[in-house]
Each structure stands twice: as C-alpha cells, then as structure tokens.
C-alpha cells in the first residue's frame, strides 16, 4: 500500500519534478493522518491555516504544559485567531492524542 502511495504521488508530481522554474511549480499535497474524534475539526480549522499536521506528528509526544505553551505561542506570537474555548479544545486534543498528562512518562 505504501508503494501505491509513493507511485501515485510520484505520478502526480512528475511534471513538477522535471519542470524548470519557467512556469509555476506544482507542490504535492500530503494529507497527514490526524487522529479522529475529540473535535479534530476544531484542530484542523485553526492549525491548518498556517501549517500542516506534520508539525505536530514530527515532534513526538509532549506534555500538557508543552502543548499549552505551544498554543499560547501560536496565539500570542503568530496571532492565530483562536477563541479561548477552542484553545482549550485543541490543547486537550493534542494532549490526548499526541501527548501525556504527567511528566513521569518521560
């Protein structure tokens, strides 16, 4: 199945692979697997404005304070337009699916 994906992606991007920059480039789109449930639609709605879910998946599991700090950074520094209650939803989602509650696990 992985081979199929690679082949499909390669086929799609073949034109781009050999294209010179004399015309617009075509960027492949990667759909990163996002755990379903716990209001993943809220997570997608805000996080994907600026970056792919690859940013989450490639950090490894993180603590609640870490994810809380990250959301604060997105809101305070990068000006992500996330209302307070949605911030909490996103933090809970990230801790549940891509994190842990206590520091004893690390």
């Amino acid at each position: 199945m992985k081979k199929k994906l690679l082949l499909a992606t390669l086929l799609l991007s073949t034109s781009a692979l050999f294209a010179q920059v004399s015309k617009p480039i075509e960027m492949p789109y990667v759909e990163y697997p996002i755990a379903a449930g716990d209001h993943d639609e809220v997570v997608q709605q805000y996080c994907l404005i600026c970056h792919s879910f690859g940013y989450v998946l490639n950090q490894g599991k993180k603590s609640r304070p870490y994810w809380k700090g990250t959301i604060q950074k997105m809101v305070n520094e990068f000006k992500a337009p996330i209302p307070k209650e949605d911030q909490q939803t996103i933090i809970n989602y990230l801790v549940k699916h891509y994190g842990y509650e206590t520091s004893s696990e690390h």
Partner: protein
Amino acid sequence: MDKFSRRNFLGAGLLLGASSLFAKETTKAIVNKNPEFIPPVVAFPEKKPMKTISDRPPLLASNRGRELFTEAITPNDQFFVRWHLPDMPMYVDLNEFRLEVKGSVNTPLSLSIDDLKSKFEPAEITAVLQCGGNSRKYYAVTGQATHGVQWDHDAMGCAVWKGVRLKDLLTHAGVKDSAKWVGLNGLEKPAMEETPDFFREMEIKEALEDQIIVAYSMNGEDLPYLNGFPLRLVIPGHFSDSWVKMLSEIMIMDEYRPSFFMDVAYTVPDNDCECVISGSDFEYKRKPIAAMKVKSVIGYPLPESAIKKGSRIKIAGVAFDQGKGIKEVMISLDNAKSWSAAKLGEDHGKFAFRPWSYDWEPKIKGEYTIMVRAINRIGNIQPMPDEIGWNAGGYQYNAVDHVNVKIV
C-alpha cells in the same frame, strides 16, 4: 502570483484516494509503542523523493539519511528544505523580479538577476548550510526532548554558492553614516497579516564581511526553487535561519527592528554555556543563534549494519565548524577509551564540509560503537553526548556522533 492553497490540492481525486490509504496505514504506526512518526517520502519540484516532515510550509530531508554525508558537496536535488511561512509564490518571473536595496542609502537600487550577474564581480564560496535545529532529536538521548521538529542529522548540506558580495551591493548603494543595521527579507509571507514576517538583521559591520554573498547559483546551477530561487543570502559559518530565501529586499536601517524569529524563536540562553538545566522552559534571557559549533557526522556505515569479520571497511563522514577550519577528526572504537586520527579528505575551504575517512578491519565478532570527534583550528572540540549543554529550543546540537554496528 499563485499562492499555496490547500483547496487547490484537494481537487486531486487520485491523490486524495492515495492519502486515505496512507492514513489507514500510518494511524497504526502512531498508536504503537514507537512514538516516532515516519514521514512519507514524496517527490517535490526539482527534488528527488524526500522525507516530507511537512508539505506546508515545506520541510524536507533527503531519504538517504546519513549516507548523504560522506562527500563534501551535497547534490541540489537532495538538499534539505525548510521554509517558515505558509505562503510562498509558486512562480517567480525573472523579467519582473527585482532585488531592492533601500532605506538609509544614497542611491536605492532595483536589480534584476541579469543586473546582478553582469554588473557585479562574481564571488564563489563553498559553505555548509545547517538548520539551527539539526540533530535536535539527540538531545533526548541524554536529557529531555526539546521543542520543535525532531530532526536527525539531516537538516544540513554543503554547496558551492556563487553570487554577488553583499558588501559590493552596499557600497554601490552608498550606505549613509546614520545606518547601523541591514534587514533582509524574502518573498515568503504569512497566511495572516498579523503574523510576524520572517526577516533577518545584521549589523552593518558584519554585513561588510567579504564572505557574505547574495547567491544566484548553487553547485553550478540556478538555485533550486525550494532552496530559495532566484536569490539567497549566504552567511558562511552561520546557521541557516539567517540565509534568507527568495531574497527580495535589503533594507538599510538606522535602528534595529524587533524580529520574532531572531529575538524569540531562534535563540539560546544568553550565558557562557548557552545552556540551562534539562527540562527548563523558555524562561531565560535569550540571544539569537549565530555562529555554528564544531561538529562531525558519520556517513558510513549506517546504524545497525552487520559487517563481516575481517572485511575492510572505510568509515567515512564529514566535519565542519564556524569557519575556523577543521584541524583533526578522531575515531573511537572502544567507547571513547582511546581515539585515533582519521584521514582528512580534500579541503574545499574553511566554511565547507571536510570529508574524513578511517580504514577499519574488524577482527573480532561482536557489537561495536563507532564514535567520531572533531577539533577545529582554535581548539574547539565536540562535547560528549552527556556533556552537551541543553537548551529548550534544541538548537546547535554538536555532541560526538556515534553509530552502532555488529561484526558477524
């Protein structure tokens, strides 16, 4: 100009089908005990299939991993990619593109690529481009995992850069006496106006250093689009967050302009060791990362290789530093009890990868750890992994590299 847009890509039915297959498969990989996500391998414009850490903004690493680092020059189509903001132009028309040099200057300049190639003396330098977060995942071996994408040793490369000296551009424009800073900005833009733009600043006296160039060529070709076509700032010896891609504006300023990426993001603790207790949060005084640290990486053999007893193998890799030059590279095969000198390869200049190799004929079966340690001409030496100073951003990792192999 066409912009990145997720919606544009969602139209591709074939790709959607393929990615949902993929989703099913990798969900399993995430919930199992291995916490490490394996990024998909996808071909991008002018690139061989790359580990796609993120597609938007693109963060790409060669799928060859360490193997890439046995040679001094990294091929363009396998060179790592790391953008910061989601909206980059999908096309740069060289008939319209201009590099603006403006602000506190006597004569503002607006230069086409042809102008840069024909009106200024070309300058060429071989230099290492390394992300500040390169090798970040290894902080987690001896301390707490740090913030950020957990790069292996794959966010680096070395290329021959050709272009115009920044100094020549500044001289041509005539910097006013009141000017103190140079701000450099490229064409990548945030998704929302309120998001801080990605730009870099340096003091005028630094900008006048000979080795800093505005490059239009990489390894004898146009810059690959994703490495910053058509122009990229090259600051040899410095981490790559300063090497502004798609450089379009050089602003000469009398005052420093606060910059999120320099003041907050790409920073280390502002103390002598540039370190804090492992696990600390960002609550420390910071300074921007700048000069790189002496470092060496094993390119061959690959981790967990099985090697036949009595075979002759050439352990190989690269070493580099902030531009003082590599003096010596040492290998240990007995867990750092003893070290032997590796043979240094061709010298491509003090800012380049210095290839090294070490002939080894293992005679006893068993498990071995190969370690490598470099020292530069001013005596900077790589720390052992348990000695490296920790910082929350996981920047400038340069501890002794190691690879475990089995002699069978």
